[in-house]
């Protein structure tokens, strides 16, 4: 790899992923610091001296990983509270004025599901450490009964001398006791096994195969987290791990080696007294659980509201468009998405769809492509509109509004296939609010599609836009690309070559065939004279497959590096995954 490409890769990395990497780094460092701090706390603590004499550092490892587990269980519920995140997104522009920082932090919020998954993996890892350490502890506590004449043997039998001097929770052990039987006598053991099994089931049903193809299994088994959290709060109830409370009267540093003379030697006349530590998990878990319960209640209340369907339009290529009356929710901004639930199909499933109507219209519209089971059934149920409409609920709107478009001098919108749906709302929004935002001068719109049928539903809107913006020259430039065609279509294209309007879309601008050449297009945008003197900021918005996004990333950075001194044009890439 040449030096140039390494530098390019590095700058790509910094520009697009720095916020995520920094956040993950801070989280990992917090985990490690918590583990090390708690480990040394227990490793050097005098009140746990006698417990360490029985089971050595197993208690330190187990307690340290338990602290990390508490921390991660606190964090895991927060990224899935959709309404909380929407609230923060709404309040964020008021707190952070500088738009570049705002862009970084907003992108963090868009990746909340990935963070949830990372915290899940961390819980699995720390659980493994915690369970291994506690298995070692349990077996040692049982095994230690075989010793005779050592400090550990004296500690085992201390409960016979004074009643609150019991340190080993297993006192009625003989050589025939099965380890598992002793474990079932403790709350921590039973809840621990339930926790392990729940975690294994949740982990096995969260793999990508199950999420993509059998979403219901994932959704319903993931709700085992309720059992997980309840058992987690009950896990430390018995207070098995004991620490010494009378350190002034009985000093372990002096008396540990004098274990044969406890009660007779005047330094160690008083026996050590032990008390169990109180359970602490519920303190960590209170706040996120309350927030999550509020979130679910809010979703449920929203789902009870009546939603009126105003119109249903069936397009070709398996796309249906539904118009809703929007009196029961906040106006969705362009780029946001809503969740739909249909009671007659599935009582508990919410499916997300991007909103395609602009904020000024008096209805909310979604375009639904019918490829899966649920969407096909929904299309079948809506065939008999206006009679016999199934009952539908809406939850939303969620997501980041794409109002970032007005912070740039020029905007390049690139959409592939059905990924063009958010741009429908954005273009309508631009059309209706162009008078307020004078900074935006140019809009370049690229739409790539591999069949001709999907042009139909979007083409009408583009025709309207073409008509309305005819007097603003050079404001909107759109290019439509068809990337696959059959022989009959190719013949029709050749015959139609000299017509004024395009045969597929009916627009003035003819459809291009093949893939766009972004290098040439970007260069011509740089060379175009916009009649302004300052540095031009151009936002590039991409919604499409990963290779396309990578290609555009490289191009943006290359163009930024080349033209930094010439025309002072700066390209900012925004990866949207709607």
């Amino acid at each position, binding site marked *: 790899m040449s030096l140039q490409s390494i530098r390019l890769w590095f700058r790509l990395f910094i520009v697009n992923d720095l916020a995520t990497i920094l956040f993950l780094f801070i989280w990992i460092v917090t985990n490690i610091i918590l583990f090390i701090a708690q480990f040394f706390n227990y490793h050097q603590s005098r009140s746990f001296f006698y417990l360490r004499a029985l089971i050595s550092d197993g208690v330190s490892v187990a307690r340290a990983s338990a602290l990390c587990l508490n921390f991660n269980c606190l964090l895991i519920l927060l990224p899935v509270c959709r309404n909380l995140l929407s609230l923060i997104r709404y309040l964020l522009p008021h707190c952070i004025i500088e738009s570049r920082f705002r862009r970084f932090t907003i992108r963090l919020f868009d990746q909340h599901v990935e963070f949830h998954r990372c915290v899940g993996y961390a819980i699995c890892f720390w659980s493994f450490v915690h369970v291994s350490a506690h298995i070692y502890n349990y*077996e040692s506590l049982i095994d230690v009964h075989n010793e005779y004449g050592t400090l550990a043997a004296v500690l085992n039998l201390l409960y016979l001398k004074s009643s609150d001097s019991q340190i080993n929770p297993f006192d009625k052990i003989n050589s025939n006791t099965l*380890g598992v039987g002793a474990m079932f006598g403790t709350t921590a053991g039973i809840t621990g096994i339930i926790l392990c099994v729940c975690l294994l089931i949740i982990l096995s049903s969260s793999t990508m195969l199950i999420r993509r193809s059998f*979403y219901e299994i994932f959704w319903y088994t993931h709700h085992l987290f309720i059992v997980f959290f309840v058992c987690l709060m009950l896990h430390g109830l018995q207070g098995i791990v004991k620490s010494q409370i009378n350190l002034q009267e009985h000093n372990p540093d002096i008396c540990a080696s004098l274990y044969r003379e406890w009660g007779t030697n005047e330094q160690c006349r008083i026996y050590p007294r032990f008390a169990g530590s109180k359970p602490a998990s519920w303190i960590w878990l209170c706040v996120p659980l309350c927030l999550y319960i509020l979130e679910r209640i809010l979703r449920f209340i929203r789902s009870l509201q009546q939603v009126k369907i105003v119109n249903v339009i069936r397009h070709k290529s398996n796309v249906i468009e539904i118009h809703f009356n929007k009196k029961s929710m906040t106006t969705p901004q362009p780029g946001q998405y809503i969740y739909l639930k249909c009671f007659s199909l599935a009582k508990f499933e919410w499916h997300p769809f991007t909103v395609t109507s602009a904020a000024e219209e008096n209805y909310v519209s979604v375009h639904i492509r019918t490829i899966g*089971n649920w969407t096909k059934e929904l299309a079948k149920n809506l065939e008999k509109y206006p009679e016999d409409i199934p009952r539908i609920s809406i939850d939303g709107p969620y997501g980041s509004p794409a109002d970032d478009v007005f912070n740039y001098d020029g905007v390049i919108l690139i959409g592939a296939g059905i990924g063009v749906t958010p741009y429908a709302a954005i273009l309508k929004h631009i059309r209706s609010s162009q008078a307020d935002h004078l900074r935006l001068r140019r809009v370049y719109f690229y739409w790539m599609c591999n069949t001709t049928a999907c042009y139909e539903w979007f083409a009408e809107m583009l025709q309207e836009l073409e008509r309305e913006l005819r007097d603003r020259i050079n404001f909107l430039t759109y290019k439509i690309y068809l990337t696959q065609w059959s022989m009959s279509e190719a013949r029709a294209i050749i015959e139609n070559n000299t017509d004024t309007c395009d045969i597929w879309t009916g627009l003035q601008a003819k459809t291009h065939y093949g893939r766009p*050449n972004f290098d040439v297009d970007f260069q011509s945008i740089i060379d175009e004279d916009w009649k302004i003197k300052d540095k031009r900021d151009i936002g590039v918005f991409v919604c499409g497959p990963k290779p396309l996004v990578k290609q555009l990333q490289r191009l943006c950075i290359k163009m930024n590096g080349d033209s930094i001194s010439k025309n002072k044009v700066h390209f900012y890439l925004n990866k949207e995954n709607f």
Partner: protein
Amino acid sequence: MATTTTATATATAAIKTVFSTSTIEWAMWANEHVLLTGYVLGIFSILTIIFHFPLWQIAIYGLLLALFIIIIEYPRSGRIVKKSKARPLQKYPSLLLTKLGPLTRNYFIRFVVYILLSLPCLFLISTIAPAISLIIGAGAYGLAALFQEQWIPVEPKTTDNTVPMPTRPPPREPLYRAPSNA
């Protein structure tokens, strides 16, 4: 025989009312779950053997059981609706499984065998949790057997040699003409 068929019919109907909108193949989830259990059982058995806890001999059995589970469960079954993605290096255990024929194709056998084999692991603290989750995975295979699913080997992808390579490049605009505006 009539009572068992009505029992299976009511169980099938009950499950279909909850999961009504899609074709669920329980065997796919059972496969993922039992494979994960195999890994966990293997790791905890190794830990038990290293530390020589009491009754660690059961852990040797646990390790062998874990290896057996991993070999049987590693090949992913083919699916009815879509083509399933094979795990890396799947074809070697897959050969073994196709040779064994009906023993591995039928999921009811897996249901019974896994429940019986997991019972000794219930007696050790380090392997009791994987043993319980293996029983749950075996239950999922029982559900799969209820729906008469089968294990189908995944064919490796064959490159299609029938369509000839195109001789002319696809039509594109010439590179040096600036694109026109709308």
